[in-house]
């Protein structure tokens, strides 16, 4: 009998050891970062496998499809009116863009790109601040409702310029997150240039994923306004304070263009953070909300409980003020 107890004890000890080893292995995260889409990315996930190569090839595919900065990408060819069959990434982003274009009554519009370029905020840096005739002419070819996909080709007016730069970063985040999920990784944080998707928790620290929201600053420095916990959502931030131009009179022009007028918005919103089901949706709405202004956004969100929003704006006394809508997390 004594011998039996001993064996049992040994077994228990052995199995304990085995178990703790397993937990140890799982508690380590892999961190991968690098440059992408003219900014940087960082992926933290709970697995030992290094997916750097896979991430890089996924980014290459997305760039090849949608980057206006790459001359032989599908979208660049499309904008030069060359025949090109669109891939699944383009189609996904196209369909999502249509939905958000429609929902925001055109405040989000992928055909505004040429006007953005005319104001020299976008991809083509050769052009500079512009005159009203140029803007009026360009506005004739703005309107995503007139762009239709026919047999995987895009049908548009030759002068219409399409770009998904206000949604592609968020989509890139989703592509990486979906890849991790296909590989059965459920605890991860994917970030590209401030756009985020978080799932599960940080297993290494055994805490929820914590992300910081930037304080709006015009001096180019970074500081955190508040930190929040995220899980199983995408979050994107659109901030005018990071990218703006000042004219001779000291007026600040945001890089968000009003899609109805073609002029930069003179909104008092400094930054919009949106939490949505995925990062692509969050990214597109963050841009649209910046252009819509506080009142319209507040009204819009009453019928869109799936979106959580945090606004930082300049009030009448030129002070920062914040507004949380639809239960955006306090911390």
């Amino acid at each position: 009998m004594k011998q039996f107890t001993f064996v049992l004890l040994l077994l228990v000890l052995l199995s304990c050891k085995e178990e703790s080893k397993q937990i140890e292995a799982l508690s380590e995260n892999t961190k991968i970062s690098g440059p992408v889409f003219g900014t940087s990315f960082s992926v933290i996930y709970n697995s030992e496998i290094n997916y750097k190569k896979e991430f890089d090839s996924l980014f290459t595919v997305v760039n090849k499809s949608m980057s206006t900065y790459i001359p032989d990408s599908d979208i660049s060819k499309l904008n030069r009116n060359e025949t090109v069959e669109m891939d699944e990434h383009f189609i996904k982003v196209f369909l999502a863009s249509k939905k958000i274009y429609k929902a925001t009554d055109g405040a989000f519009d992928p055909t505004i790109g040429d006007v953005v370029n005319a104001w020299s905020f976008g991809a083509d840096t050769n052009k500079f601040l512009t005159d009203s005739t140029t803007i009026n002419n360009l506005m004739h070819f703005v309107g995503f409702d007139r762009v239709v996909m026919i047999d995987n080709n895009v049908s548009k007016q030759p002068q219409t310029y399409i770009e998904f730069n206000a949604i592609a970063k968020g989509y890139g985040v989703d592509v990486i997150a979906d890849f991790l999920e296909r590989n059965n990784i459920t605890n991860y944080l994917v970030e590209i240039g401030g756009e985020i998707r978080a799932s599960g928790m940080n297993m290494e620290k055994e805490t929820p994923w914590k992300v910081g929201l930037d304080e709006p600053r015009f001096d180019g420095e970074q500081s955190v306004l508040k930190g929040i916990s995220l899980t199983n959502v995408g979050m994107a931030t659109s901030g005018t304070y990071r990218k703006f131009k000042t004219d001779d009179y000291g007026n600040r022009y945001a890089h968000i263009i009003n899609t109805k007028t073609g002029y930069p918005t003179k909104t008092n919103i400094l930054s919009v953070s949106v939490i949505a089901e995925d990062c692509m949706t969050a990214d597109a709405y963050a841009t649209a909300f910046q252009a819509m202004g506080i009142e319209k956004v507040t009204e819009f969100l009453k019928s869109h409980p799936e979106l959580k929003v945090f606004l930082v704006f300049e009030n009448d006394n030129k002070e920062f003020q914040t507004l949380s809508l639809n239960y955006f997390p306090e911390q």
Partner: protein
Amino acid sequence: MSKALTNQELHNLAMNHVGKDLEQRGFEFVAINSKLKKHPQFVCIDKNSQYFFVIVKAVVLPENPNNYDVVWMETFKKHAFDKDAKVLFAGVGLGNPKGEDLPIYLNEDYLIEYNGLQVVETNLN
């Protein structure tokens, strides 16, 4: 010399009719697939930014245009559900007025039976 329409051409003829109906009802086109067997034929969006996948099926009369393959439709319904889209079915019957066993000829009169858009419930199996 009369030239009979191919299956692809019959399909496109049916799509033209359904497309006009969709347009009149205020749907906006997002994507169109005109090739035979490439589904859905129309991806439309309404003013509430609701997506609709429209299946167009051309049949030669007297075959009943209102019926669809329910087994196939189950898989398509799942696809639409995943994409948060509603499904509409549009059956179009086409025929030669001079006789059931004659084909439909290019640039000649034809019979059409079209009973509008059927809503296919995605939440029922």
